[in-house]
Every structure is written in C-alpha cells, then in structure tokens.
C-alpha cells in the first residue's frame, strides 16, 4: 500500500518535472542545433550539437556590453538592497511610536503594482537627471518591501538576550546588525540576494522606458533588439536566451539551500 502510494507520488512528481523542464530543455536543445519548432521529423535528442549559435549570438550583438551593464546594475541592486532592507528590517524589530503605521504603509505599498507608479517614477528619475544611466535603471529596485519584512521576521527570531549581550559587549547598533543579526539570518540574506538579483536581471519594462542609448541597454533589452534586427536566427536567438537566463539560474543554484530556508522561516517554531 505504502509502495503504491510512493509510486503514485513519484509518477506525479516526474510528470510535473517533465512539464516544467521541457521548455527549458527545448530552448537549450535548439540553441545547440538551430532546428526550429517545425522541423520534421521532430527529435528529442539533439542531432549534431555544436556551439556555433553561441558564437554567432556573441558576435552579432555586443554581448559583453549588455552583460556587463546588467551585471553592474544587478550587483548595485543586490548590495544596496541588502544594506537598506537589513537596516529597515532591524529598525522594525524595535518598538517605536508609529511602528504599526509604518508597517501598514509598507504593506499597502506592496499592493500597488509598479506599473501604476511608473509615470511618477519616470518623472522623478528624470528630475534627478538619472535617465539613461545605470543608477536610474537600478533606482526603483534598490529596496524591496518583501525583503524588508523577511529580514524583520528573521531578526525577530534572534533571541533578545543575544542583542543585549552584544550591547553589553560594547557593540553599536550598526555592529549588532552586521556582526550578530546578519550572520544569524543567512537564509534571509540569501533570499534577498537571489530575489533582488533575479528581479533586477529580468527587469524589462523599466529599463525600456529609461534607457535611450544602446550603451546602457541591459540583457532583456538586448534580446528584444536582437529579435527586431535579425531574421532567421532561431539558433542564435535561443542561444542568446540561454545566456540571458544562465546567470540568474546560477545565482539561484548557489544560494538555493538558504533560500528555501528563508522562505519557510517563521513557518514552524524553532
């Protein structure tokens, strides 16, 4: 009975995995063969795989520039996010007048979709003179409320006696945050890094609005201009797609263990 149940569960899981992984596999397969979706007969195992299309994608667009732009912006976003979110999260573990108001304000802000604030955000960025700059692209992503709340709940799980001991040991609030709270909240740090990196890396709409010159284009923008400029490039297009997705996948895989703990922390006691 148990065995049957196990088999059924595994069969279901395999089916779901196949459904999830097939498109990814298809993209990778096409990127090394160049066969488009309508080639006949369809094959599952790639025939004569090679890296030609990667080389083609690399040279047809200025890949290094797109990649370095995206990387600089994502790094900036990750670092500033960690800093601001941890500081805000730590502040929210304290008792102060108006704390409930601040919390509900943060929660309410989460309900507003970014697209609804895109015009004021644009005007603000323009006023700051940051249009068509890396800082301008990064600006709206420099803090994520979800991550603030994540830090808050992780910090609250740190026993208060540790904070008090640190205070007696002579640490300032900043040192308590960086030397005690952050090292003890690795899941929150990992989650913050992954989420802010992926969100920044994949962001399309905001860079599209802010960026004017090709010099400042990010990977997703590069993908669109690639699509618009070249015809009959199935293989290179898919190769380019793989290169766009690869870094965020890598970041996710590196921090995955702590990431899952971060998302489930607070769900159970201890």
């Amino acid at each position, binding site marked *: 009975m148990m065995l049957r149940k196990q088999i059924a569960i595994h069969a279901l899981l395999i089916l779901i995995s196949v459904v999830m992984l097939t498109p990814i596999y298809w993209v990778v397969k096409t990127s090394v063969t160049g066969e488009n979706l309508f080639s006949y007969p369809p094959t599952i195992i790639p025939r004569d795989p090679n890296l030609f299309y990667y080389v083609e994608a690399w040279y047809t667009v200025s890949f290094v520039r797109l990649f370095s732009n995206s990387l600089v912006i994502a790094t900036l976003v990750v670092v500033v996010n960690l800093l601001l979110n941890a500081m805000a999260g730590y502040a929210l573990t304290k008792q102060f007048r108006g704390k409930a108001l601040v919390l509900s304000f943060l929660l309410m802000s989460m309900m507003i979709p970014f697209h609804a604030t895109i015009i004021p955000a644009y005007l603000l960025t323009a006023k700051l003179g940051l249009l068509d700059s890396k800082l301008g692209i990064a600006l709206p992503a420099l803090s994520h409320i979800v991550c603030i709340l994540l830090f808050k709940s992780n910090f609250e799980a740190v026993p208060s*006696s540790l904070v*008090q001991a640190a*205070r007696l040991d*002579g640490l300032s609030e900043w040192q308590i945050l960086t030397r*005690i709270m952050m090292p003890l909240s690795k899941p929150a740090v990992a989650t913050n890094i992954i989420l802010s990196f992926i969100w920044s890396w994949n962001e399309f709409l905001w860079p599209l609005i802010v960026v004017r010159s090709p010099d400042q284009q990010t990977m997703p923008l590069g993908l669109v201009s690639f699509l618009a400029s070249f015809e009959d490039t199935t293989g290179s297009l898919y190769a380019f797609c793989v290169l766009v997705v690869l870094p965020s996948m890598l970041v996710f895989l590196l921090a995955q263990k702590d990431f899952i703990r971060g998302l489930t922390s607070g769900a159970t006691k201890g």
Partner: protein
Amino acid sequence: MATVEFRNLVKRYGSVEVVHGINLSINDGEFLVLVGPSGCGKSTSLRMLAGLEDVTAGEILIGEAEVNEVEPRDRDIAMVFQDYALYPHMSVYDNMAFSLLYRKTPKAEIRERVMETAEILGLTPLLDRRPKQLSGGQRQRVAMGRAIVRKPQVFLFDEPLSNLDAKLRASMRLEIKKLHRSLGVTTVYVTHDQIEAMTLADRVVVMNGGNIDQIGSPEEVYHAPRTLFVAGFIGSPTMNLLPARSNGNSTLSVAGQTLNVASRFTPPDEDRDLVFGIRPEDITLSAEDASGSEIEGLIDVVEALGPDTLVFVNVGEQHLIARVNPDIHPVTGQPVRLNFNIEKSHLFDARSGEALS
C-alpha cells in the same frame, strides 16, 4: 571592583509600576542575591543596573558615579544570561574574545586573558567548538568565561542555572561560589531558587511585588524573617503559618487549641488577627503533653526523604508539615501530638504581615 547603590529606584511600564522605589547598597566584593517569585521586580532591577532598561526614577551608582544615563557598554559590568546568550556563529574562543575585541584590547592580551580564563573554567579543550556542540553545563561555563575575561567591576547573573538539571545546578553553584571567592568581584545574582540564594549569598535581598521585604544574611532571612512573605518564601518545605489569636495571658489560640508561648514572646493584648509560624524542623512528634507547647493532629501523609522524613499533619482545618528523624516511623491516619520548639517560633501581624517577635 566597586560598590553598587540603588537610590529610590523606580521602574514603570506605561502606568504599571513594577519596582517601587527600592534602596539598596551593595558592598565592594560582596555576593548579593536578589530572590523572589516571578514578577517581583528582581530581574527588572538587575536589567536597570545593566543598562538594558531605562530607569524611570531614582538613581543607580556604580562606585561613586551615577550611571543612569551611561550606556551599558560603558558601565564596566558583565552579565551572564539565563539562556547563556552565546553567539551561535562563533567558536568558544571568539565568544570569549568578542567583547575585548571591541574594547581595543591588544590581540596578544586578548589571547592571554581568554586562555587564562579557559584554564580556570576547564574550557581549554573546547575553545574551537561552536556553542551548539557543547552541553548545557559547558555553555554555562562559556557564558561565565565571557564575563570573566572582561575583568569587570560588577558581575550580574540573571537566573544563570535555571536551564540546567538538578545535579549540574548543584555543581555549577559550587563553581560560582569558588569563582567569586578567587576573583572577589562584586556580584549581583538574581534567582527564584531559594537554595541558590541561601548557598551563594553573602546577603540575600528578598523582593516581593516590586518592594524589598528584607535584606540580610542567609541565616537572618531564614531564622528571623521580617515579614510573612519572607517566612513563607524562604525554606523548603516552607514555614508552617497558622492563623492565631492572643488570649491575653501569654497564650495563643492556634487551630482551636491553646499554646503557651511565654518563653518566646508576649503576644499583644488587643484582639487582632495574628499568624503563628514554625519551621517544619522545629516540630517534633511526641506521645504526651509536657510543656503546653503542643497541639494535637491527625497524620495525613508521610514522605520518607532518606536523611529525614516529612510528616503532613491535619490540625482541624489547618495543615502542618513536620520534619522528623527518619528513625521515627509515623503511621498515616494515626493521631499525633506536635511539640513546637517555641524558642524558634515566629509571630506575625496578619494584616500588615510584619513580624512581632
């Protein structure tokens, strides 16, 4: 080392006052224990001394200096917490060295002090371990080590042994006592465990409802409790406390029987509610009335503890406990005469709770 003084110390949370203007003066090198039930304000007072709680009113002095507005780290105190508060992401060595690191102590000196303290506490083989790889007793020792390396003016202990099992608690108690003797640092120790209070303290401060009920040596608070609360709190099993009335002729009416107390005290003449107190070990079981200091009862339960036997006796509606020689074998349900050692009995005013003897 330093003296510590509380002057009219008050702590209020909103409209709730939890410490009501206490005065306390702690001598240089003294081991002082604050004891009392949960919520009596002992931990709050300690935390105010540490600087972890603001002082609502009054003054705290360490040495000659008022420290009300001084940051915890600048008070030159070290605290051992109930849950040890060890940094889980650091080794034992780093835990102990951590505070010195932030006090700009030279690396070589940090090493020397940590090694020296680890040697005293038997932690040398554990210095590379993380706290979660240690047993409860070892963690407790690391917590103490962390306090000792600082060489502070005052040690604060906040119920440090309450997470340990009974056997370990007894041995740690001994270690703390020895440590205090060798270091001689002024120590303030908070506990709700009266055995810790009695065994460790130079002086015991019994707190009740945000007030200090009595300050004295362990012997004083045990043998001469100043209030009903102290009498009921210190000692295990606790003192027998029986409602009493004065008969006006050096006798008391206790549990419907007459007790001659002339040798110990003269009960007040006026008719008011009194409480007669007697410790279990000051009661003996006897066969016949010899001195007029006896009352009759019925044995309810007998508990043989080994070194002595506890006998629970019902006297009318009152229940008494006697601690007797284990060679005596009282029988449950039998009538018995309780002989009180009147010289060691106590009399309290029932309304004010203050001792009259």
